[in-house]
């Protein structure tokens, strides 16, 4: 089953997302707490997919996305957004994000988006 890297500064958000993904049969390759850590772990773990929260300290999700896509143009990146981050979403599309998941998480939406991106 696909391996997923979760990048989010919120422990709560990582935990809920992890439970949904593990429940759907995916393996969690690792977790990172900010964009910089997320980029380094992506290079180290080479997961099948990475979820990137947009609002994070140090490097935010958009900056981490740019670094990851520069390192691996085929990287499958799903952005995690609080609703309302329209401009950030436009930037994320521009930089190659595959999809978006909105908080608070709806398990069915999460599973649908992840499956769609992994099958693309």
């Amino acid at each position, binding site marked *: 089953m696909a391996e997923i890297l979760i990048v989010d500064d919120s422990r709560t958000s990582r935990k809920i997302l992890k439970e949904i993904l593990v429940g759907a049969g995916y393996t969690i390759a690792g977790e990172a707490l900010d964009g910089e850590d997320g980029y380094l772990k992506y290079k180290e773990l080479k997961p099948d997919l990475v979820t990137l929260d947009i609002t994070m300290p140090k490097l935010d999700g958009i900056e981490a996305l740019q670094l990851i896509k520069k390192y691996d143009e085929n990287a499958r990146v799903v952005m995690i957004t609080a609703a*309302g*981050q329209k401009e950030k979403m436009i930037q994320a599309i521009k930089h190659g994000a595959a999809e978006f998941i909105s*908080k608070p998480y709806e398990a069915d939406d999460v599973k649908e988006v992840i499956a769609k991106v992994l099958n693309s």
Partner: protein
Amino acid sequence: MVSSIVGNYLVDHNLISMEQFGDLLKEQQKVRVKLGLIAVAEGLISQEEADKINRLQAVMDKRFGDIAVEKGFLTQGQVEALLKKQGNAYLAFAQALENQQLMSIEQLEQYMIDFQRDYNLTISDMEDLKSDDVDRILPLYMPADSDKYLNAVGTALRTILRCVDNNVYPERAYITKRCDADNGAIQFVEGEHNVTCAMIGKGQALLRTASIFGKEDFPEVNMDALDAIGELLNCINGLYATSLSQSGISMELYPPEFSDKISGIESEELLIIPLHIKGQKVEFAVAIDHKIKMEQEA
């Protein structure tokens, strides 16, 4: 929300017990509000007339509304209007009170007159309250000249209703410069107006909110529990930013900050709305064009 507001008023005045109130909230989910109760609540017929129609119903095998029209108590138009109110939460609560034989709708309406007087509300305010519509109820709890806070507080209340406690209810909001607290989270949102929102509490007040939203039984309000409160703020502010974006206003969210060792929060001007969430009183705070600072415990 109206059930919580009315129910807590009845508890505070020793008219029902806390245990009975808990049972009523459960009963309310199951009840089908009777047309007669709505007609009495609306003042269209008396309780005696409703009882008379009920007795006739037992022997006529007809619906309440049909008998009421036939006997001239109500018009067809009135019956149709009453039928539309059958899903109303206030009336469902009133029906639960009757079903549990705690009080009749007429008695409840008498207590609501006391409520109206105690809270200095108009008849129109009472209609807003009974509508159970957050957008109509919230202004009743806001201080004068506080319209600029309404959108942020309304978003918070709706999000808490949906994600944490569908029986949350507010106390009167107020403007201040500081508020005591032991722990909490804040989030800064930058845009045309800089907005800071906070959720704070004393002792273990935030525990249940954190546990429900974080889907985890935290043993106490520690940093993990406050991370969950920060995430709740993040969701509230995301939705708030969405509503502003519909007016062409773009907002950027910053990562939430949280601390379990504060003495309070302060700002140049701060709106505080106390919220009762799962039996705990917490404070939601908003500052517009001013930042909120957490005062670290000495």
